[in-house]
Structure formats: C-alpha cells, structure tokens
C-alpha cells in the first residue's frame, strides 16, 4: 500500500500541514501521539489496507509549521477541525493515539455532532493522582523505549531506524527535532497531561472504542476505565503483549478492533 504525503494550507494559510495519505475505503482521520509519526509508519500502513487514511502532522512536527499560534487545548482542538476542513473530510472515523487521542476526544466533545465514530488509543488527558503518569519531559532519549513498548528491544529498532544515539551528529539532530515536537506537545501535556477533558467527556455522542495495550507503562491501563465511565456507551478493547505504542506493536489486532466500529 503506497503512502504519499503533501503539504497543505490550513486555516487560510495560517498553518502549513504535512498530511500522509493512502489506501482505499472509508475515510479515517488519524491524530498521532507526542512522538509524531514514524518513518514508514507501520500503523498507518496497516490502516491503509482498510481505510482511506489521512494522517496530518501537528505543526511543530517535521515541516508542519505555524505552531506558535497554537498555544492551548482549544487552539489544538480547533486546529484538528481546520485540518479536516482543509482536507474536505466529512464525518470520518477519527482515531487518535495518546496525545492525539486527547485531541480527538476534545474534538468530539466540543462539537459532538461532527464526529460519529471515534477510536481512542491509549489516550492522554486524564490524571489520576494515585496513578501518576511518568514525566516524558524529563526522560532521556534512551529511556523512551522502556515506557513505550512491550518488546523494548524491537521498539528501539522501530524508533531509531538506521541511527545511532551515540553519534553526536545524529543525537544532535534527534534532540533538535525532539525539542520542537515535545515543545509543541508540552502545550497540552506539560507539566501534567490534563486540561479538563474529564469534565467534557459527557458531551461526546460518537460511538466510541477505547483501545489499550495490556502492558502500557506510560499511561497505565487503569486510565481506560475513566474514559469508559465518562463516555456514554464506550467499549474497551485491551490488546495483549502490547505497550503504549500498541498500534505499532500489534497493528493487525488494532485494525481488527477498529473495524468493529464500521
């Protein structure tokens, strides 16, 4: 399945957004997590086998720009709709992972009639003081895989294809890109990844599926219960032998789960 990308104008040219696109089938709007999309993203490829996938990169990621005007959760939520508008999408299946799940849930809550089917994959956005989420902004680059993957060794290869963190030049480039990505993510997730979403979940009307990796060490699966409780009629699907990047570790299981929303 070929995935192509293009740079589009969003919000009357206020943002330029890189959108990855591919596949045939019903439209699916995918919002990535704080790490962005991976090179030759396995999850996007798997989704494209059953859907027409649209995966925009948030400004601050790669060559998507205009992040300075996106300061808070409302800006990010409306930006999500601006991208949908620019792509001419009407009522796609909206899928968000982690930070993207937080944005997707906010979108569905703020305009409940606009989103009819919603999948939240290990979404951020809720904070339980008795289950604090690890501070991703204080992690060293080499510490990430432990929190993101069930199979840490395979995860490391996914994250740094062809690169070596001990090479100063590679590390410098990684850290600059990472600072820009996480700098943008920090507007929603720093210092606590919570912006009042739990008080708005009741507004969501979409048929909602919540998906969690059974061995998620970043946002522990106990958080799934809060989304299920908060969103009327939401279903939970837990995927075994998967961590926070459940869609990358178990893409086929994830796609099968999504297809129950069709």
């Amino acid at each position, binding site marked *: 399945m070929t995935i192509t990308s293009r740079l589009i104008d969003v919000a009357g040219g206020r943002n330029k957004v890189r959108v990855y696109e591919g596949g045939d089938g019903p439209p699916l709007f995918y919002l990535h997590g704080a790490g962005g999309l991976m090179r030759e993203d396995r999850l996007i490829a798997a989704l494209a086998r059953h859907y027409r996938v649209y995966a925009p990169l948030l400004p601050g990621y790669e060559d998507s720009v205009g*992040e300075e005007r996106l*300061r808070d959760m409302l800006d990010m939520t409306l930006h999500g709709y601006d991208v949908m508008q620019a792509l001419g999408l009407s009522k796609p299946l909206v899928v968000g992972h982690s930070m993207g799940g937080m944005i997707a849930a906010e979108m569905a809550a703020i305009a409940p009639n606009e989103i009819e089917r919603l999948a939240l994959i290990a979404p951020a956005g809720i904070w339980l003081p008795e289950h604090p989420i690890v501070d991703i*902004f*204080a*992690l*060293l680059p080499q*510490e990430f895989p432990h929190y993101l993957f069930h199979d840490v060794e395979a995860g490391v290869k996914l994250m740094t294809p062809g690169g070596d963190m001990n090479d*100063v*030049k590679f*590390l*410098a480039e990684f*850290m*600059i890109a*990472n*600072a*820009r*990505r*996480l*700098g*943008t*993510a*920090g*507007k929603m997730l*720093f*210092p606590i990844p919570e912006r009042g979403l739990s008080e708005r979940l009741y507004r969501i009307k979409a048929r909602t599926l919540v998906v969690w990796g059974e061995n998620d060490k970043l946002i522990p699966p106990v958080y799934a219960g809060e989304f299920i409780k908060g969103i009327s009629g939401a279903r939970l699907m837990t995927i075994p032998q998967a961590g926070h990047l459940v869609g990358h570790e178990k893409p086929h299981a994830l796609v099968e789960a999504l297809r129950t929303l069709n």
Partner: protein
Amino acid sequence: MKFTWFHLMPWPHLPDDFREKHRSVWVDIPTTLYDAKRGHHVYHDYFDQLEYAETMGFDALGVNEHHANAYGLMPSPNLMAAALARRTSKAALMVLGDSIALYNPPIRVAEEFAMLDVITGGRLACGFPVGTSMDTNYAYGTIPALTREKYNEAHELIMRAWREDEPFAFNGRYTKLRYVNCWPKPIQRPRPPIFIPGGGSIETYDFCLEFDYTYCYLSYSGYLRAKQLMDGYWERVAKAGKDESPYRGGFAQVICVADTDAEAEKLYSKHVHYFYNRCLHVYPGFADAPGYRTVKTLQANMITQLTQAQLRNYPTLTWKDLVDQGYVIAGSPKTVYDRMVDLAKTLRVGNIFGLFQVGDMPGDKVRHSTKLFAEQVMPKLKAELFQEWKNEDRFWIKPMQQSERRQMAAE
C-alpha cells in the same frame, strides 16, 4: 570594573555519598537532606559574609533565585535583598532574580523592586532572568514553549508600570489587569539598571541590546569555556551597531585567593570539589525542557553543548584540572590578578560576579579569600582595566546623594 560579591547560598551539609544515592541536586532532591535548625545558622552565616563584603569595598552584593535546589537556597531573592537593605549602605544590591515569568501577576515584581529601590535609596540593580529550565519549567510548571512569550509580556508590563505616571489597563495574553498602578515607584527612573543572565540564547542577546541591559553569563565552567559564547554576544553587539562598552557584559567566576598557590589548594580544594561534585550534580533530564530553547538557538549550539556535556565530567577533575582549565581562578593574589586580567580581556566583561563562598566553605575561609582579593587584586584591576570606559555610567546604579539619605542601621 564593577565587582559583585555574589552568593549562591548552597546547602553545605550534603552527604559524602550524595552523588551515588541521588540523581539530582535540583528539582527532585528529597528535603530529608535539609535541616531547618541548621538552616537558621546557614542563612545568618551567609548574610554575615555578604555584609562583610560590603565593608571590604565590593561594588555590589549579589543574590539570586532558584527553586527546589540544594545549592541555591533563595527561592525569594527579594527577601534576601530586603534583609540586606538595612544592614548595608553603600554597595548596590544586585538581585539576579526575579524570574519575571513566574510571578503572578508580574506587577508584583515592579512593586517589590520599587520597594527595594526606595528602601535602599536607589541602590537596586535588578536581574530579569528567564530562569533555568529546572526552575521555570520543572519546579514552577511554566509550559516550556510559552516561557519566552510569557517572559516578554511580563517585561513589558513591568517597564510600563515603572514608566507611566497614570494608571493604565494592560490586556496581555497571560496577564489582564484593568488598573495597573505601581505604588511605590523606584527612585531610579525610568528604571534601575537591569542585568539579564543568559546561557547563549540568541533571543536573549538581542533582547539585551534592544533595551541596553547588561548581558551576564553565569556559568560555573570558567572563563576559558565561556569565550565562544561571549564572542557570539559581542558579534551580535557589533552587528546591532552598538558601542562596545565592557559594561554590556558580565561573567560569574569562582575565585579563591590565598597567600600562595599551594596554600589555595590546601585551603579551598575540598570545598571546590564539594561544589562541583555535589552542588552541580543535576540530572540531565532536567537540564533543558523541550521547547524551552528555540530551534534557532538549538541549531546554533546543540553540537557544542553535547560535546561539552560529554567532556564535563566533574568527578574526574582534579584541583589542577579545575584551575588550569579556568573553572576556578585560584592562587596567590598575583596568580589571581593575572588570570582576572586574562578573563576580563578574553571575555571583554566589565562586570564580575565573584563567587567567593564555594560549596561548603566556612565563613573564616570565605573572609580570608575575600579580604585578599579586595585588598590586593581588586584595586589594581579597577585602576588598570577598561580605563577608556571609566566614565561609563549607563549600566550602573544611580543612588540618592548621601546628603539626601536617611541614616540607616548599618551606618
């Protein structure tokens, strides 16, 4: 030259195995390592040292602002300056807080600095640090990518609050005030001299040049390593078409003076190692929150930073390494003089923030080193360096005339 006797106020009782048992001196260091009753003595010892520095003729007494930090016990530098205000009468009070993005609303800074300036009769010199990432982001929760915008807005509010004679409305993104009305106003109008601590951000260079503030590099790595950064600043000064007054620049330096070079090692080595090995033991994950520095600055500095970070392995550095590589300027008055001349010329800085109390150095040694510097080093440096700028007064305090001033407790 202007010499500020600068105190960090480190906690001097960190255990010997601190590095092994704890990942950071900053942000998440447990407070079980602190003891408030000992802290009572520590604060008063440190005030004694600052007050002593005034009697030795230093131009300014320096305090700063850190949070959740065992080497900087001054979350509120304004409190420290207030305590010094009535115990001193000549020296400038160099307050290298306030981290203006952290005060809510930031008009509080305009008010408190004005109070200090009035109480001291116009002896306040104030710093407006953006604040380190450890303080501003991790300890105080400011969103990294919005820190600078919030800082700029706070700066605009404070300056207007000092400048304007009538109440005004301020509609900022981060602060909205219907009535800005700063009572009292500072003695130094339109403002006291402003010193901006920076760590190589291009935006900070430009900010200092736009408003004629003094750019200060407060590193603990010594002047040899600071050359590249200060060269970058002076290039920017030239590019902006500004004059090259050395008082546009300042530098912090650890200084230890003894009767001989050998004596300096004997007296101070232990305390210097305490400082570099325990006080500067910061978890790298807290050093630079993503978004805190702009991409422009990261691109300019990242490789240098990573390379330097790999080289900066404090536990392996001997006294000789620290002295030879300029982390510490130490030795006899002659040795210290020579290196200070080299420092001032290399970096072209008219302002020195001298760190004489280092790590767990006790008061008697602090006074010994301070006295030797004040009597045998400082006067020569003042008489010999930057003479072509000796009438420069744009970057320093302008206090009330002695005759106008009310006598204070210390006099």
